C-alpha cells in the first residue's frame, strides 16, 4: 500500500514534534494508544487562559507513517483554534485531508482521541485551579 503525498510529507517532515511542560497549568496532555497495532501517541496543547486559544501544540507518536502524519496534522489544525473549536475536529476530516485508506482510519481516530484527551486534561486543571462552588442552601 502506498502512502499519499500528504502522509509522506508529514512523515518525512513532521510539524511540531516535541513536548511541553506537562506540569504547567496552561498545558493539557493527551496520551492515547491503539492496541491493535501497538501505536502510542502523545499530544500536548498550551492554552491562553484569557482567550482559551490554543497557542502551541506538540506531539510525539510511536507508530506507523499514517499515525505520525495524523498527529502532525492534528497539531497544525488545533493551533490558533479555541478549545471549543478544536473539539469540533472530526477524524473523518483527517482521513480526507491525508487520503487515508480504510485500513488506516484508526490512525485518524487516534489523533482525534489525542486532541480530546489533551483538552480534557487541560479542562481538569482549570477546574481544580478554581475554588469549587459549594451549595450552602438549607
Amino acid at each position, binding site marked *: 500500500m502506498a502512502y499519499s503525498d500528504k502522509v509522506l510529507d508529514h512523515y518525512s517532515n513532521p510539524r511540531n514534534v516535541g513536548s511541553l511542560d506537562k506540569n504547567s497549568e496552561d498545558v493539557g496532555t493527551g496520551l492515547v*494508544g491503539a*492496541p491493535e497495532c*501497538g501505536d502510542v501517541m502523545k499530544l500536548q496543547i498550551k492554552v491562553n487562559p484569557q482567550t482559551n486559544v490554543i497557542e502551541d501544540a506538540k506531539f*510525539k507518536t*510511536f507508530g506507523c507513517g499514517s499515525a505520525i502524519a495524523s498527529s502532525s496534522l492534528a497539531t497544525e489544525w488545533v493551533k490558533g483554534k479555541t478549545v471549543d473549536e478544536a473539539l469540533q475536529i472530526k477524524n473523518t476530516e483527517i482521513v480526507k485531508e491525508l487520503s487515508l485508506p480504510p485500513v488506516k482510519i484508526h490512525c485518524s*481516530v487516534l489523533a482525534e482521541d489525542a486532541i*480530546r*484527551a489533551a483538552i480534557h486534561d487541560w479542562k481538569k486543571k482549570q477546574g481544580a485551579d478554581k475554588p469549587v462552588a459549594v451549595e450552602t442552601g438549607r
Partner: protein
Amino acid sequence: MENQESKTSSSLITPGDATSTCWSCGDMRAAHFCSACGKVQPPLPVDYFTFFALPRKLNLDPATLEKEFYELSRHLHPDLSARFDKREQEWSMEKTSQLNDAYRTLKDPIRRTEYLLRLEGVELEEQSKTATEKARATGEVKKQVVPPALLEEVFELNLQLEELRASQKMGESDPGLARELENRKAELEKKLAGLSEELQGYWDDWDRLVDSGSEEDRRKVRDKMVDLLNRRNYLRNLVRDVNEALGN
C-alpha cells in the same frame, strides 16, 4: 474389526452423526467425507471450530488437533485426486486450504483466542471508532482500552529505544542504557508470562460458561480477554522492539 478401525481413526473421517445426505450415494453424510461411500463432500462456509467438529471452547488438546489435521490432510491430498472426480478434486483443494487456515489459527493459543473473540462479535476497531463518535457527540471522555500506566510505560520505553538507536547511529555505545533496557525487557517478559497465566484462567471460565452460563456471564469473560489481549499486544511489541534495538 470394523468397529476397532473406526475407533483408531479420526472422528472427522468416520463421524458418528450425519447432518445431510451424500451427493454421491445419497446416504447420510459426514462433515468432510461420506461415512458410507467415503466421497469428499462439498466445502461449507463454516467456522474453524466447526471445521474440526470442536465446540467453541478455548482449552483444546494440541496433540489431538495435530492428529486430526494430518489425518484430514492425508485424506484430502491431491495425490489421491486420481481417485476423485473433477468436482471432488476442486472440493478437496478448497477444503485443504480451509484446513490449513483452520489449523494454523487454532493451534496457536493467542490466535485461537483472538479468533474466538471475533466469532463472538468483538470488533476492536469498529468499537473504538464508535466510542470516539460518542465522545464527540456527548463531550464525555472516551475510556482508553489500555490502562494509562501501561501507555506511559510504552511511551517512556519507546523514548529510550529511540535514544539508543540514535546513539548507535552516531557510532557510540551506551552500555548503561543497553543494560537498563535488558532489565526492562526481562520485566516485560515476566509480565507477559503473567498474562498467559491470567488468560488460562479466563479460558477455563469461558469453557465452563459455554455449557452452563448466561449470555451476560460470557460477555464479561469475553471483555476480560479482549482487555488482556490489548495489554499483551503492547508488551509483545515492546519486547520485539527492544530485541531489535539491542541487536538480539
